[in-house]
């Protein structure tokens, strides 16, 4: 766990005065005018949980890189605390800091930062070399991570012979090689072409699924943030203006600034089934009989109806025409006409994955939990409303 309390970074050589003004609530601009000091990060507090992908997002100059570099003390913060494993990074002795950087965390850079005079294998092994691990062992380990990022066969090449996407894979492999708990990634995909970038995002999500590192990931791209972040922090002028899940950010922006940031995003990436589903108001139980079901459907203008058992578990659905036939035959039980070929999904499935299904299904999509209990249904109207930016669903 990383706990950051009231972190402030002021650039300049007379930070005391600036800090004093900042504590009084004077704005960054005013501080700059009065003291010539630049506020990089202003009173940021947050906690990153183990195994979480925490994204920091904001426009250029909002202080993202500064904040990230305070965490491994590449930049020394002016005030505040950075607690990792119960120790404050800001005040720990130099030797302890060195150990922390060696074993506990590693960094991935925007422009890859590969050493041009080393082969891919030796680049990946860099951190292990610094740890003093002997050659055979470190090369074996490096080989392993190179395979993990899909660069097998490129061990002996030099960085300049690789494409940007491959170079960043090397950067990621190098960061993973020391098996750190924490990965600090400063816009790792910003320098890549859009298509390569998407591949890399997906791959990072895959790798994260396997390794469960604590990742702090910086980006200025909201789509990217929504895609990979468990939680997102939005920064403006050195301050964190909102922290929340991708859905929180999208659906309830805390400030005008966040709302504008979120305006143009591809919402299907962030919205999940549960955020746009409709509560299942119209259902029948098998013992209700076809006549009841038929009346119900006629009354509400439905052509299908979900059937639940008495525990609320989804058994299937029935069609209006089957019910009327059954009614005509005088059968009392619905069991014979329950269909089970309806599309189902989980509450946390991204909407993006459901749009295709949405397009061809005649039956509403059933949203069920792990126990097969019906949570809601996806109907076209609410999905479109969600995508269009209104509050999806009626929860």
């Amino acid at each position: 766990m990383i706990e950051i309390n009231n972190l402030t970074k002021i650039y300049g050589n007379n930070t005391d005065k600036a800090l004093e003004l900042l504590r009084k609530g004077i704005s960054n601009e005013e501080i700059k005018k009065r003291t010539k000091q630049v506020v990089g990060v202003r009173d940021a507090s947050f906690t990153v949980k183990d195994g979480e992908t925490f994204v920091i997002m904001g426009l250029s100059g909002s202080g993202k890189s500064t904040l990230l570099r305070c965490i491994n003390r590449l930049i020394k913060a002016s005030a505040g605390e950075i607690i990792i494993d119960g120790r404050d990074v800001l005040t720990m002795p130099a030797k302890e800091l060195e150990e922390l950087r060696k074993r506990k965390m590693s960094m991935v850079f925007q422009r890859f930062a590969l050493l041009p005079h080393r082969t891919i294998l030796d680049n990946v092994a860099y951190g292990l070399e610094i740890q003093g691990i002997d050659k055979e062992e470190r090369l074996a380990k490096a080989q392993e991570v190179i395979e993990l990022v899909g660069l097998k066969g490129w061990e002996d090449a030099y960085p300049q012979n690789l494409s940007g996407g491959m170079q960043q894979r090397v950067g990621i492999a190098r960061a993973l090689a020391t098996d750190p708990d924490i990965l600090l990634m400063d816009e790792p995909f910003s320098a890549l072409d859009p298509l390569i970038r998407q591949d890399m995002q997906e791959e990072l999500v895959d790798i994260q699924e396997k390794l469960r590192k604590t990742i702090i990931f910086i980006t200025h791209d909201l789509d990217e943030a929504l895609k990979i972040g468990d939680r997102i922090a939005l920064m403006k002028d050195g301050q964190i203006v909102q922290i929340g899940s991708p859905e929180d950010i999208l659906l309830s922006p805390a400030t005008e600034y966040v709302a504008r940031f979120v305006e143009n995003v591809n919402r299907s990436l962030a919205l999940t089934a549960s955020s746009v589903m409709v509560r299942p108001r119209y259902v029948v139980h098998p013992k209700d009989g076809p006549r009841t079901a038929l009346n119900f459907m006629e009354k509400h203008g439905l052509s299908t109806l979900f059937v639940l058992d008495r525990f609320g578990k989804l058994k299937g659905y029935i069609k209006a025409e089957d019910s009327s036939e059954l009614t005509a035959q005088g059968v009392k039980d619905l069991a014979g006409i329950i269909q089970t070929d309806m599309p189902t999904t989980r509450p946390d499935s991204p909407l993006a994955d459901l749009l295709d299904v949405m397009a061809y299904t005649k039956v509403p999509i059933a949203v069920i939990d792990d126990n097969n209990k019906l949570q809601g249904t996806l109907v076209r109207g609410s999905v479109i409303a969600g995508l269009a930016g209104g509050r999806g669903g009626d929860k």
Partner: protein
Amino acid sequence: MDSIPRIPLAEWTDALIAYLQSNFGTGTQAFADGLEGLIKGLQGLFIALPPEFIIIVIAIIAWWLAGKKIAIFSLLGLLFVYNLGLWMVTMETIAMVISAVLLCMLIGVPLGILGAKNETAHRIIMPILDFMQTLPAFVYLLPAIPFFGLGVVPGVITTIIFAMPPVIRLTDLGLKQVPEELIELGKSFGSTFWQMLIKIELPLARPTMLAGINQCIMLSLSMVVIASMIGAKGLGGIVWRAIQTLNMGKGFEAGVAIVIIAIILDRITQNLGKSR
């Protein structure tokens, strides 16, 4: 203006040299003896080896580092020098150049690192280098004599002073040019000062440093020739004697040999930075 008494800079300088000589005489003497051993050793080696062997080795090195053209030029050029009967003196000159360059690197590289790492050191070193480079060489040929007498050693020492600045400057520059992101990379993995230097900074500064060493070699060669005026023999000695005796032909021959050596050394070391 004339009312101000003349500042006795010359007298002060003399006094300083006398002071240094009497107080640090033994230290400088030990240094001079060591240096003389190095130069004489190299000269002895080069003269003992058969000329054919040296010529072929240099041609092979030239081929390897600078390509076929330079290799052929080296081969023909050195044969020509041999043919002129200047082989021995050329070897003397090369031994002096190599000694001077080795010492320039030994002293200059650490000073360059110091300058790059420490702003105060940088501010002290750089003006001194400006001074060393702009002061006419003749002016510090003279103070070398009271310390080291006449001969090869003071010649090489003045050469070292004259040729060292580019090594320091370009080491400093090369280290400062290492991209910020790579410095961050090193630090973010917990590299120590020496690990940073050896694994990241020096390898990246290498091409710039080698350019400095190339300059150092060329300056050394030119200074070794001038240093013959205080008795540092070699090719420069021939030129110096030719000037004194107005022997135009002999002087021209030695001059051509110097140019040939200069071209070979320059082309070979120029490509050191580029190879790989």
